[in-house]
């Protein structure tokens, strides 16, 4: 197990290097001068400009700049913005919002998706099953952009006018409640995929020999489904959920825009236009790390959940 983890970490290095290099190159190619952007409309003293350019290695060639960034990164230093604020300070608050949002979405996804999938699998071939399948198709097809505004109008505004103020529609002032609606919107398509996955996986497991044995032993249906089938059917679900954490965090930008959540999406926007390279690269680097780590944890969980799998 230990050797496997080390091997996976080593394999992750080229991915991390490649992704940061790619993002760094894109940000490097952004039009406009960051030092000029710092001053806004005013003209800066040329001397100050020189000092700033020197301080942030802006006069060096691209690869040298990247090298400076990378060595900083390995010391855990995400660098400073051109205004002198540490990037980690900026990112911390923004990532908190996005993580809250993604976590809310993930919980909804797990509960609703697994629940609907379980129900559909047990009613396989009946009307409820087809209805759930149809609903997943709609949920997959309707873009976040549309579900976001629809739910904002229906649940946030119309319901409030009817006297039920359950779901705040903008900002994060209401604590966890603020994330309910955006969380559901963000989870939308994932809920549908998870429902389908649970349904297929459970139906497959229910056909296994050990399930027939369990039924033949005379065990109650609850126990057969809950203990014997569900446990084994859950394995692919865990993989999906784990891999989805990164997708949800990276895909949150449209949801954040609809619901005015001050997360990484909004920060990325601001930073792109201020040409704050370190912030942009930092945000994407953290997302890449989340993706790599989540996938690794999922692979390791596999071995825990399914004793047949052994990593050497």
């Amino acid at each position, binding site marked *: 197990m230990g050797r496997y983890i080390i091997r996976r970490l080593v394999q992750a290095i*080229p*991915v*991390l290097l*490649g*992704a940061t290099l*790619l*993002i760094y190159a*894109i*940000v490097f*190619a*952004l*039009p406009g001068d960051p030092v000029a952007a710092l001053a806004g409309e005013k003209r800066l003293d040329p001397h100050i400009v020189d000092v700033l350019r020197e301080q942030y290695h802006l006069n060096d060639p691209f690869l040298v700049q990247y090298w400076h960034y990378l060595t900083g990164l390995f010391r855990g230093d995400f660098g400073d913005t051109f205004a002198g604020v540490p990037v980690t300070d900026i990112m911390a608050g923004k990532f908190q919002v996005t993580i809250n949002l993604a976590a809310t979405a993930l919980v909804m996804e797990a509960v609703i998706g697994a629940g609907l999938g379980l129900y559909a699998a047990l009613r396989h071939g009946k009307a409820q099953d087809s209805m759930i399948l149809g609903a997943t*198709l*709609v949920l*997959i*097809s*309707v*873009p*976040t*952009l*549309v579900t976001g*505004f*629809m739910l904002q*109008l229906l649940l946030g*505004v119309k319901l409030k006018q009817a006297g039920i103020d359950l779901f705040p529609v903008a900002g994060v002032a209401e604590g966890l409640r603020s994330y309910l609606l955006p969380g559901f919107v963000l989870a939308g398509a994932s809920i549908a995929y998870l429902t389908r996955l649970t349904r297929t996986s459970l139906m497959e497991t229910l056909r296994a020999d050990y399930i027939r044995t369990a039924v033949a032993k005379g065990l109650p249906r609850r126990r057969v489904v809950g203990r014997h089938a569900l446990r084994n059917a859950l394995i692919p679900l865990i993989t999906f959920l784990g891999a989805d954490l*990164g*997708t949800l*965090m*990276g*895909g949150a*930008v*449209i949801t954040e*825009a609809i619901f005015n959540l001050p997360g990484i*999406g909004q920060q*990325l*926007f601001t930073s*792109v*236009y201020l040409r704050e390279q370190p912030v*942009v690269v930092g*945000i*994407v680097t953290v*997302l*890449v790390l989340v*993706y*790599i780590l989540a996938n690794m944890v999922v692979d390791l969980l596999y071995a825990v959940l399914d004793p047949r799998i052994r990593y050497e």
Partner: protein
Amino acid sequence: MSDTLAPDVRRGAKHGKRGRRASAPKPDRVASLWTDAWYDLRRRPLFIGSAALIIVLIVMAAFPWLFTSVDPFDAATCQLGEARQGMSGVHWFGTDNLGCDVYARTVYGARNSIVVGVTTTVITALVGGLLGLVAGFKGGALDTVFSRVTEIFFAIPSILGALLILAVFRTGNVWTVMLALAVLTWPMTFRIMRASVLTVKNQDYVTAARALGASAPRLMFRHILPNAIASVIVVSMINLGSFIAAEAGLSFLGVGLRSPDISWGLMIADARERFLEAPGPLLFPAIFLSLTVLAFIMLGDAVRDALDPKLR
């Protein structure tokens, strides 16, 4: 082999029953994967429905003036004094914030969505498919390099990545949106093509062709490609819907298409300010967008079911 023969036999029996063809089917009739799939598809209501919807959308994209006599690019058709009117005989979908006819704009918006969706799909299918074919077939260092490169792209969240690429080109239009989406999503088709080539290339008929002295290109394009392409086509069709959704999302965020181009995402962004008092200008493009994405995803679903008898 029995898999491909079985439906043909069944079909022969069916015809026999109707008395149209009492004798056995002609020996030269080959039931390939595609004729089987087509036979199956023609009988699926899901396929017929989505195909009809897609045909209407394509006609709308090619000849929008068939659907409306108003030219939304003509500024004279917008009357500020008629802003945010409800549905009426003159303005079927009402008017937007600038007094423009929402119906005409929605109809004309189909073109950009379809063009972005179809072109991006074709680019990713060609680039990813071709690279996947070569990498899967040749293996070795080439395969390793490409596989590592795709891992890097998978780790980068695609909407955020597209946002950055589009920020580099200051002017957003259909070409830059397609480029940004294609650059980030070709690894998906690559992976699928590579995986199916790896299974196909070890089949006996490929070994037989190789033994008969077939050249590498002949093996790849004549023997492997036709049998490996099905999964790529299915995934491409489903991706087409998500490209359309992504274009709308990026235009909504302000980095995709820009005014005076007409895009459903752009219309949604323009209407959002007054959305709660006048939902029409936002809802109608949203409905068209959802239906378009739904149609392509349904088509992909139907084709997948038809091509993969095991899933039934």
